[in-house]
C-alpha cells in the first residue's frame, strides 16, 4: 500500500488500530476505576455525615447472645463478635462439606441408576431427578425442617437405641468420645495406617503394571485402617471413654447433639444438589463412545470393571466442570438456612451481629469475602483435579 494515497491524518498515531485499541482499553479502565473510587468515596462521606460508627473495632466487643451450635468454645457472656464470625464460618463450612459429600454419593448413584438397564431403577431415578430438581430449594429446606420437627417426638418421649443414641425434636444425640492421656497413640496408629495404604496403593499399581496381577487393595486398605487403631486402643489400655447423653430437666445433657436445623439443611441441600450431579454424571457417561464399552466387553471384562476402569475415568472429564458449579451452588445455597434458624454465617453475622452493631457495610463485606474465599478454594481444588484427569497429550 502506498502511504501517499491516504489522507494525511490517516497516518497519525491515533489512526493506528493497535494504538486505538490500547487507548480505548486504558480509557475504559480509567472510567471503571474512577466510578469505583467515586462510589466508595460517596459511601464513606454519607456514612460519616450520618454519624454511623465505622471500622472493624466492633469485632473485639462482647457479643452476648446464645448460639445453638458452636464448633469452637463459645461463651454466651464472654465471647466476642469475632468468635461469632468464626462460629458462623465453621457452621457454614460444616453443612457445606457434609452436603457436598452426600450430594456426590447420591448424585453418582442416581446418575448411574438413570442409565441402568433395569426399568424400575432407571424410572425411579428419573422421577427423583425431575421432582427434586424442579422445586425451589428454599421450599425444600422448609419442607424438610417441618418434616423433621413434626415426625420426631419430644425429648421425654425420645426414640432411643441402647440408651446411648437418642432421636427427638431437639436433635440427634450421640455419645461424645472423651480423649484421655494415651489416646494420641491411636491417632498416630491411624495416620500410620493411612500412610501405609498410600504406599500399598502405589506398590499394587506398579505390580499390576508389571505383571498384570490384581491385588485386593480396597479390602486390605479398609482392614488396615480399621484394625490398626482398634488394636492400639486395646494395647494402650482403652484410653477413650464416652460421655452418654442423659435426660435432665427439660433436655438431654452431655453427649454430642446434631440439631434438627442441621439435619434438615443437610437433607435439603444434598437431595437438591444430587439431582444436578446425577444429570452431570449421566451426561458424562453418555459422552463416552459406545465403542469403548464394546471393546472392553470383547476383551472379556466384567460389567463393574468396565464401569470403573473404562467408562468412569473417561466420563469424569465431562463430569467435573459442571459438578464444580454444583458444589459452588451448594455452598451458596446454604445461606438459605437463615429461614430455619441454622446458625451459619449469614444468620449469625449479617443477621444478628449486624443488628446489634449496625455496621452494615463492614459486616456485609466480610460475609461476602467468606463466600468468595470458599468458592475460589473449591474452584481451584477441582480445577486441579480436572487438570489431573484431562487427556494427556501423547
Amino acid at each position, binding site marked *: 500500500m502506498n502511504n501517499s494515497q491516504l489522507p494525511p491524518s490517516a497516518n497519525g498515531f491515533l489512526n493506528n488500530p493497535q494504538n486505538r485499541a490500547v487507548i480505548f482499553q486504558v*480509557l475504559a479502565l480509567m472510567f471503571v476505576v474512577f466510578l469505583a473510587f467515586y462510589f466508595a468515596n460517596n459511601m464513606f462521606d454519607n456514612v460519616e455525615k450520618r454519624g454511623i460508627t465505622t471500622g472493624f473495632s466492633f469485632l473485639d466487643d462482647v457479643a452476648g447472645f*446464645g448460639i*445453638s451450635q458452636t464448633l469452637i468454645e463459645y461463651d454466651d457472656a464472654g465471647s466476642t463478635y469475632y468468635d461469632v464470625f468464626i462460629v458462623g464460618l465453621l457452621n457454614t463450612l460444616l453443612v457445606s462439606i457434609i452436603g457436598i459429600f452426600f450430594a456426590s454419593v447420591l448424585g453418582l448413584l442416581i446418575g448411574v441408576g438413570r442409565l441402568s438397564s433395569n426399568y424400575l431403577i432407571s424410572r425411579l431415578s428419573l422421577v427423583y431427578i425431575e421432582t427434586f430438581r424442579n422445586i425451589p430449594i428454599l421450599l425444600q429446606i422448609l419442607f424438610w425442617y417441618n418434616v423433621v420437627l413434626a415426625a420426631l417426638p419430644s425429648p421425654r418421649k425420645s426414640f432411643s437405641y441402647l440408651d446411648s443414641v437418642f432421636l427427638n425434636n*431437639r436433635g440427634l444425640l450421640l455419645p461424645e468420645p472423651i480423649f484421655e492421656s494415651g489416646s494420641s497413640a491411636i491417632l498416630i496408629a491411624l495416620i500410620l495406617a493411612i500412610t501405609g495404604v498410600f504406599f500399598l496403593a502405589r506398590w499394587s499399581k506398579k505390580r499390576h503394571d508389571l505383571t498384570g496381577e490384581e491385588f485386593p487393595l480396597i479390602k486390605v486398605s479398609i482392614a488396615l485402617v480399621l484394625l490398626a487403631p482398634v488394636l492400639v486402643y486395646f494395647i494402650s489400655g482403652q484410653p477413650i471413654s464416652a460421655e452418654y447423653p442423659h435426660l435432665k*430437666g427439660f433436655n438431654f445433657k452431655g453427649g454430642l447433639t446434631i440439631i*434438627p436445623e442441621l439435619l434438615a439443611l443437610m437433607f435439603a441441600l444434598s437431595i437438591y444438589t444430587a439431582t444436578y450431579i446425577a444429570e452431570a454424571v449421566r451426561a458424562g457417561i453418555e459422552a463416552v463412545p459406545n465403542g469403548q464399552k464394546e471393546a472392553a466387553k470383547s476383551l472379556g471384562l466384567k460389567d463393574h470393571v468396565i464401569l470403573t476402569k473404562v467408562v468412569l475415568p473417561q466420563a469424569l472429564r465431562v463430569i467435573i466442570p459442571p459438578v464444580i458449579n454444583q458444589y459452588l451452588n451448594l455452598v451458596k445455597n446454604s445461606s438459605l438456612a437463615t429461614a430455619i434458624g441454622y446458625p451459619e454465617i449469614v444468620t449469625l453475622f449479617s*443477621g444478628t451481629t449486624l443488628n446489634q452493631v449496625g455496621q452494615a457495610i463492614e459486616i456485609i463485606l466480610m460475609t461476602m469475602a467468606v463466600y468468595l474465599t470458599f468458592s475460589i478454594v473449591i474452584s481451584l481444588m477441582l480445577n486441579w483435579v480436572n487438570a489431573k484427569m484431562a487427556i494427556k497429550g501423547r
Partner: protein
Amino acid sequence: MKLTKIALILGIASLAPSFASASTLDQVVKKGTLNCGVSTGIPGFSATDSKGVWKGIDVDFCQSVAAAVLGDPAKVKYIPLTAKERFTALQSGEIDLLARSSTWTATRDTSLGLNFAGVNYYDGQGFLVNKELGITSAKELDGATFCIQAGTTTELNLTDYFKANKMAYKAVTYDTSGQTIDGFKKGRCDAVTSDASQLYGLKLKMDDPNSVVVLPEIISKEPLGPVVRQGDDQWLNIVRWTMFAILEAEELGVSSANVDSQLKSQNPSIKRLLGTSGKAGENLGLNADWAYSIVKKVGNYGEMFHRNVGKGSPLNIDRGLNNLWNQGGLMYSMPIR
C-alpha cells in the same frame, strides 16, 4: 480527548446524590406520603387485619405524624421490616420514620446514626411456656431451649438473665416472629421469650391459647419508641412533639370525639395544644392546627392504646406503666408552651 474526560467527570459529579442534605420534612411534603417502617406483623403494634389494612399502636403513630405533617393520616406508605432490616432501612433513607416497637438502648442511639424520639410503649421481656410443663416461674427454666427472634435486645437480655441466675439455656434464633412462634408450636423449644406485649399477641396465634401461659417475671426494661435518622433536628422535633401532643391531648381530656368543641375551650393549655393560641406549630415548621389534626383524625394516646392493645382489643393488656403519670404510669408529656 482530555476535554471529553473532564466533561465526563463533571457530568458524573453533577449526578452526586443530594439526599443527605435535603431535610426530611421537605422530602415528605414533596412526596406527599410518609414512608413509615413497621413490623412484619406484631398484633396490637403493627399488623394487617383481615382486610389487609394496617392496624396497631405503632401504625397509629405513623398516622399521627402524617396527620401533623401532611394533614391526612391516610398518606402513609407502610414498609414492613424484620427486626434485622429495620435500622439499615432507616439509615439508608428508605423510610422516614421507624415505628416498629424498637427498644431504646445506648448503643442504638449513639452508634447507629439514629435518634430515638420518645417512648410510645413501656415494655419488658417475658416468657411464654407450655402449660403442661407445669412451670410457674422463670427461675425453673434451667436447661431449657428458647425460640427467639434474631436481631433483638431479647437475645442479649436472655444471656444476662441466665448468667445472673447461674442457669444454662439453649437458643434457637429465627428471622421473623412468625417463624419463632412456629418453632415453638412444633416443639423445637420449651419457651418463647420476647417483649411481654408481643407474648400476648403470640398467645392468640396458638391453636389453643389456653395451652400456654405467660410467666410472671419481667427480666428487662424495654422502652419502645419511634426512631429517626440523626442529623435532622427539625424532623426529630416533629416526631418527638407528635408523641407529646397525643399524650398531652389525653391528659387534657381532648379526644377525637370532643376535639371540635374543645376548639372553643378557654383552657390556655388546650388553646396552645390545638393551635388557637401560641406558635407551637409554626416553630415546628408545621401548620398551626397540627395537633388538632392528629387528635381529630387519629386520636389521643388513651384512644390508641385502648383500641389496639388495651381493653378494647383482643390483647386486653392493662395500662400499667403506660398510664399517664398522674394515674400511676410513666407517660408524661413535656409542656407545650
